């Protein structure tokens, strides 16, 4: 029983298996590359202040993949999540500080829920090792609690629908290098947690369909919000949220059907690797384009299209492989909801395509910044781009399922292209739409619902303070009035005639009582 007791430093264990090697590769690559990029792009004065937060986040972000027991997983998870506060608040503008405050609150909540889930699993499993945790929960009443807690906690991390505003908030303010790291790596930790901790194959049937529905809703909802938002990075934030919705769908597949676990986890990992690299490339690209001018800028714009297309899922791209793995995982399930979701998956591609077009237009429309310092680390961006394209071929075969050979059969080719075409057609039509509709395009501020919630909380806080002050004054003069009343009654009571009459009355009363 004492091993349930966290054994301090001695208890932290790390181990590597197939899932963690892939994630470590992704996280290490993204964190290090973005770090170098940030080193070059951030002015030297701010560099120290940035890396005070960047380094612990990077260490946590990379180590979390290898954590093998609940305590070390929670430590690395916290080590990565909390310093991100500093990255977001780095520009020290009022908006960034407020966004960082929102992020810190949501992270604190997600940390708390994760801890609760870990403790529940640890008591059930009578031990701390991650592998033991997941299997022990199966079939027990706490499985329901654990799954809800995990989905809530990780939902906040990967931007599931009600909280999908958190990703644009995270990406909008930090320096571009840091934002790329966040986009590429930190959101994927949620996916890692889904694979590591979510009870697989033991949940009742209803859970899978419910989570799938949430995943789909996020995929479509985030896409709609993304199209309507204002800045390129916010669009990328919403696109991450919608892609993570698909990851959630993939994870849901593993919940209640044991046979689908392998496929589902494969899909999650594939999706994470693909999305991490593509989103990182896009984020860096956005900054590179902003820095370049003239002919170099047009070349960069063209290059930017590559990760965008891969996201949409064009054949031979990592997006295509990931989407295919997702389809296989969902297809393996039976029942009305999985079939419907399976049918919907291609339509999510339209959403992503629309987001990419919106992103593209915003980047192009953004005015050229004045001449920035000479050496812009485009070479780093080039490396990120090539890796994001080539990765699909070099990552371990088990994540590809049978994606490669099916790339060339016409049916799957067509199912990958038509969504992109419809999106382009839609965008073209919308250009001529009435002004009122077009104005709608800029209506959603990044992090939409969270800002309103934050304002509401501040209002309540002001109200509470005012009410406490008023009660203090009224009690003071109440005391004074009571004192005067006391003194005057005493003066009357002590007067001679009154007192002596009272005494006589007392004597008579005693006589009456005793002779009764």
């Amino acid at each position, binding site marked *: 029983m004492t091993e349930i007791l966290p054994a301090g430093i001695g208890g932290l264990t790390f181990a590597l298996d197939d899932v963690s090697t892939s994630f470590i590769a992704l996280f290490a690559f993204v964190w290090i590359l973005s770090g170098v990029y940030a080193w070059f792009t951030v002015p030297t004065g701010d560099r120290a202040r940035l890396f005070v937060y960047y380094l612990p986040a990077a260490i946590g972000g990379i180590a979390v993949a290898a954590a093998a027991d609940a305590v070390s997983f929670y430590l690395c998870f916290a080590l990565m999540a909390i310093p991100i506060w500093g990255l977001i608040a780095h520009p020290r503008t009022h908006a960034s500080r407020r966004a960082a405050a929102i992020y810190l609150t949501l992270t604190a909540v997600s940390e708390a829920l994760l801890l609760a889930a870990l403790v529940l699993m640890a008591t059930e499993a009578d031990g701390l090792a991650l592998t033991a945790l997941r299997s022990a929960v199966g079939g027990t009443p706490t499985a329901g609690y654990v799954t809800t807690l995990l989905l809530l906690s990780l939902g906040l991390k990967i931007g599931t629908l009600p909280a999908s505003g958190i990703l644009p908030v995270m990406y909008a303010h930090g320096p571009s290098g840091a934002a790329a790291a966040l986009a590429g790596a930190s959101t994927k930790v949620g996916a890692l947690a889904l694979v590591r901790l979510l009870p697989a194959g033991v949940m009742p049937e209803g859970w899978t369909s419910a989570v799938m529905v949430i995943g789909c809703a996020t995929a479509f909802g985030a896409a709609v919000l993304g199209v309507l938002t204002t800045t390129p990075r916010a669009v990328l934030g919403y696109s991450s949220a919608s892609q993570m919705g698909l990851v959630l769908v993939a994870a849901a597949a593993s919940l209640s059907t044991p046979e689908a676990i392998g496929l589902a986890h494969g899909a999650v990992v594939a999706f994470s690797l693909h999305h991490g690299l593509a989103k990182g490339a896009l984020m860096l690209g956005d900054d590179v384009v902003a820095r370049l001018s003239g002919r170099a800028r047009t070349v960069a714009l063209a290059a930017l299209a590559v990760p965008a297309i891969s996201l949409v899922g064009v054949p031979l791209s990592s997006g295509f492989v990931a989407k295919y793995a997702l389809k296989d995982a969902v297809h393996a399930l039976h029942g009305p909801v999985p079939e419907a979701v399976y049918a919907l998956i291609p339509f999510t591609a339209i959403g992503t395509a629309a987001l990419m077009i919106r992103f593209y237009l915003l980047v192009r429309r953004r005015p050229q910044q004045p001449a920035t310092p000479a050496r812009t680390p485009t070479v780093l961006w080039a490396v990120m781009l090539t890796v994001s394209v080539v990765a699909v071929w070099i990552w371990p075969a088990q994540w590809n399922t049978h994606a490669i050979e099916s790339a060339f059969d016409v049916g799957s080719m067509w199912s990958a292209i038509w969504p992109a075409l419809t999106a382009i057609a839609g965008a073209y039509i919308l250009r001529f739409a009435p002004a009122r509709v077009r104005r709608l395009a800029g209506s959603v501020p990044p992090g939409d619902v969270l800002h309103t919630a934050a304002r509401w909380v501040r209002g309540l806080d002001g109200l509470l303070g005012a009410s406490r002050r008023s009660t203090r004054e009224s009690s003071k003069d109440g005391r004074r009035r009571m004192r*005067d009343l006391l*003194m005057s009654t*005493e*003066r009357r009571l*002590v*007067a*001679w*005639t009154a007192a*002596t*009459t009272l005494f*006589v009355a007392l004597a008579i009363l005693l006589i009456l009582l005793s002779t009764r």
Partner: protein
Amino acid sequence: MNHYLVYGLGGALIFSIGVYGMLARPHLLHKVVAANLMGSGVFLILIGLGNRVQGRPDPVPQAMVLTGIVVTVALTALGLAIVKRYYTVTGLTTLDDDPPETDA
């Protein structure tokens, strides 16, 4: 209705007049007189209701009355001295009823 009961009731009457005097009369001298009245009333009761031992009169009530008189005289002397001193110091002859010291 034997005769000694008259003394008892008479004593009680005088006692109650004395009590009324003590309570109601504001003038301090009246209070001293009232105290003596109460004393006499009690002594009458003591003698009147004393224990009847056939033939020989019971000595105890007599002793009590004597001591009572002595004590009452002592009280009256002290009372008069204080009233006189109080009059010379403050010129008041009554206890103005609001105790001055518990001011707000």
